[in-house]
């Protein structure tokens, strides 16, 4: 126990030595706690177990295989089953499916239209195409929030092309969107015969500006896009499309979801194109862009367009947007998916951290510890630093192994792995370490307050794992479980989120799909708050109670 004693302060340099002695004292306290930690074989094994179970669960258990069988053919699996998703200019997977009435446009020009109506249909037989003779049979009237009709300038009709578009939507007013991930809101309100929307796109080289207007006379700039490397001749025209209809009904105890295709019909007039190949008077061509896209909402075979004089009626289905993780998103995975073992690792870390404290009380070692360092809070802080640092390393090591290997396995198995930026990846990896570190500190503090290891471990697990469990096991409705994911220490898991929320895509952005209600650092801050409060409580009780 010599390591637990503080260095004596020399009287000849009292002030400096006091400060130096304090730091030096804390350093030797840290060393003492570190020696205590590593000299108990079970605790070291516990930390190794944490890493091993994280790898086992993340890489072995949490594996998804895609299987398929073409009627009568041999059963196949993995990449052979999956058609690659189109990728947008930024490399992200995109949905790119819409009905497009277009003609070529040169390197500069302007397209103006008036949109007088946007209506829609949805429902039907769960995506099974209706009879060709009556494509709308069994469908209900109604728009989706992000049903859209408007004008678009796109590099080509190939899926994943660079584009800029301005449109009116089902319930989000006018929006200018470009290159799938960007969306800027324009004039609010719904479009109708009484309140038509004038839309305009102006191309000048790589720059495209979008304007909207209520009367065709007073224009407002909504947004401007720079589409790097846009071809000289692009396609410009009108489009309509409508993302799948998703209905999730939440109950306590379970939820039920239904996905069905939807259609949007836009009616355009006052179409004026300048800078087109035929000076604006060319013929308009209709194309159902991306209709073979495998993961779209399914064709209703109703996509078409009619032209009567200057009036265009265009019906489309699909979306022009990034793919998000959720119902009907197909075989996708996020880089965080293979960190699911964090829960198991966390339990192991919590057990070790709780015991690191409660073991002191078992045979009265605490009295020796506190006699060696009478400033009790420093003992607790030193323990927190040691167990936090060890947990951080364990979490970081586990994540650095699991994430790249997991992504590779997913890729081989035919899953699309949502791309994450280097910064996001670094945050997920380091975040896993931080997550375990802060949770270990929380467990240590609870162990110090409760002193009973079984109760402390249960409290940690109920506080951290069960809120997540209640969400994914659909015991609670989403609203309740998302609330728990905001206020309980489980909020800290959001630091592992690698997926991006796109407001322009309707989706169930919930914990089970990999989206946490608070941002990555916001959720982590909630966990840190819990850890701080618990440490304060532990310090208070440790000073107040007899050892």
């Amino acid at each position: 126990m010599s390591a637990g004693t503080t260095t004596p302060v020399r009287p000849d340099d009292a002030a400096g030595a006091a400060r130096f002695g304090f730091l030096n004292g804390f350093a030797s306290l840290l060393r003492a706690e570190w020696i205590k930690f590593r000299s108990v074989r079970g605790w070291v094994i516990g930390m190794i177990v944490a890493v091993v179970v994280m790898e086992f669960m993340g890489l072995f258990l949490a594996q998804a295989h895609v299987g398929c069988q073409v009627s009568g053919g041999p059963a196949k699996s993995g990449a052979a089953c999956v058609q690659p998703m189109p990728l947008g200019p930024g490399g992200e997977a995109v949905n790119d499916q819409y009905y497009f009435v277009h003609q070529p446009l040169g390197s500069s020009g302007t397209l103006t239209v008036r949109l007088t109506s946007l209506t829609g249909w949805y429902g039907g037989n769960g995506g099974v195409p209706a009879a060709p003779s009556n494509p709308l049979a069994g469908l209900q009237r109604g728009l989706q929030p992000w049903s859209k009709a408007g004008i678009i300038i796109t590099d080509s009709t190939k899926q994943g092309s660079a584009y800029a578009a301005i449109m009116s939507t089902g319930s989000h007013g006018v929006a200018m969107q470009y290159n799938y991930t960007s969306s800027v809101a324009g004039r609010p309100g719904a479009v109708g015969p009484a309140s038509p929307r004038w839309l305009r796109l102006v191309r000048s080289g790589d720059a495209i500006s979008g304007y909207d207007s209520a009367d065709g006379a007073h224009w407002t700039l909504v947004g401007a896009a720079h589409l790097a490397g846009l071809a000289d001749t692009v396609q410009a025209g009108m489009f309509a499309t409508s993302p799948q209809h998703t209905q999730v009904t939440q109950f306590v105890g379970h939820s039920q979801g239904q996905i069905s295709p939807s259609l949007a019909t836009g009616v355009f007039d006052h179409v004026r194109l300048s800078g087109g190949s035929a000076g604006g008077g060319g013929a308009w061509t209709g194309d159902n862009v991306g209709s073979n896209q495998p993961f779209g909402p399914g064709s209703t075979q109703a996509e078409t367009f009619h032209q009567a004089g200057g009036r265009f009626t265009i019906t489309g289905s699909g979306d022009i947007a990034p793919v998000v993780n959720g119902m009907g998103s197909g075989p996708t995975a996020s880089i965080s998916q293979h960190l699911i073992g964090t829960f198991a690792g966390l339990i192991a870390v919590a057990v070790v951290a709780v015991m690191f404290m409660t073991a002191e009380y078992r045979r009265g070692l605490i009295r020796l510890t506190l006699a060696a360092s009478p400033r009790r809070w420093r003992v607790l802080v030193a323990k927190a630093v040691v167990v936090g640092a060890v947990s951080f390393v364990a979490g970081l090591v586990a994540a650095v192994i699991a994430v790249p290997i997991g992504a590779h396995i997913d890729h081989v198995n035919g899953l699309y792995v949502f791309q994450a930026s280097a910064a996001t990846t670094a945050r997920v990896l380091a975040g896993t370490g931080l997550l375990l570190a802060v949770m270990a500190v929380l467990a240590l503090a609870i162990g110090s307050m409760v002193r009973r290891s079984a109760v402390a471990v249960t409290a940690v697990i109920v506080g951290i794992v069960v809120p997540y469990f209640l969400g994914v096991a659909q015991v609670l409705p989403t609203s309740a479980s998302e609330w728990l994911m905001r206020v309980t220490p489980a909020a800290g898991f959001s630091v592992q989120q690698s997926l991006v929320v796109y407001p322009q895509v309707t989706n169930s952005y919930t914990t089970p799909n990999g989206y946490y209600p608070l941002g990555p650092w916001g959720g982590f801050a909630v966990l840190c708050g819990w850890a701080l409060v618990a440490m304060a409580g532990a310090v208070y009780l440790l000073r107040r109670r007899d050892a």
Partner: protein
Amino acid sequence: MNMTLAVRRDALHAEWTKLRTVSGPAWLLAGLVAATVGVGAAVDAASRCPAGEVCQVDTAKLTFTGIDLGQAVVAILAVLAFSNEYSNGMIRVTLAAMPRRGLVLAAKAALVTGLVLVAGAVGVLGSLLAGRLMLPGHGYTVARGFTALSLSDGPMLRAAAGSILYLGLIALLSLGVAALVREAAVAIGVVLALLYLFPIIVASVGADPHWQRHLEQIGPMQAGLYIQATTNLHALPLSPWAGLGVLALWSAGALLLGALSLSLRDA
């Protein structure tokens, strides 16, 4: 009297005195009832099925939701019944007084499980009563096809009785694990990991229904709780009793390993 019989009776008597003379078990049993009824009633209060909606709700599962938390209390109770003796060294006194170690484990298991069954019955009946008072008023009526919240309804009786047995099996599983790993913190960690991690893993392998179904069939909590299902039985990966059987296998396995460890290792 037959000596073996007398020794067994003595072991039960001694273990019963142990449980009776500290306050922990009584508090934990009260906590089990409170957690089961409280969570169940809260869920009942929060649930609605508005007229005209189609709600695929199993009223039995709904009203017995409190078991999800109650089982954690059972795990603490059962783990502590063993681990406490290891942590303070009393296990040596126990085994010196009762050298037949399997008998000690059996006596503890019988008593803890018995107490859990009694408290579990109170909790389950309380939950059922809460459901009966609240759920019909929230739209979950028999007329709309929901399972009646009455013990005279066959499936509901099975769900209620099964939920009680479920808690008993969790107690046995926890005791077995505690006898195996001794250290309270580790034992409770292992038990709660076994219970809560399977559903989390299942949710994370969404893209693979086959693998998912397998995990649902072997997870002790998920399989065991099929006993609460009263609707859509054909869609379950296992029949209700087979599901409870899976949990029973886990419990038997844990007890067997625990008994082996107890009799082979030095105390």
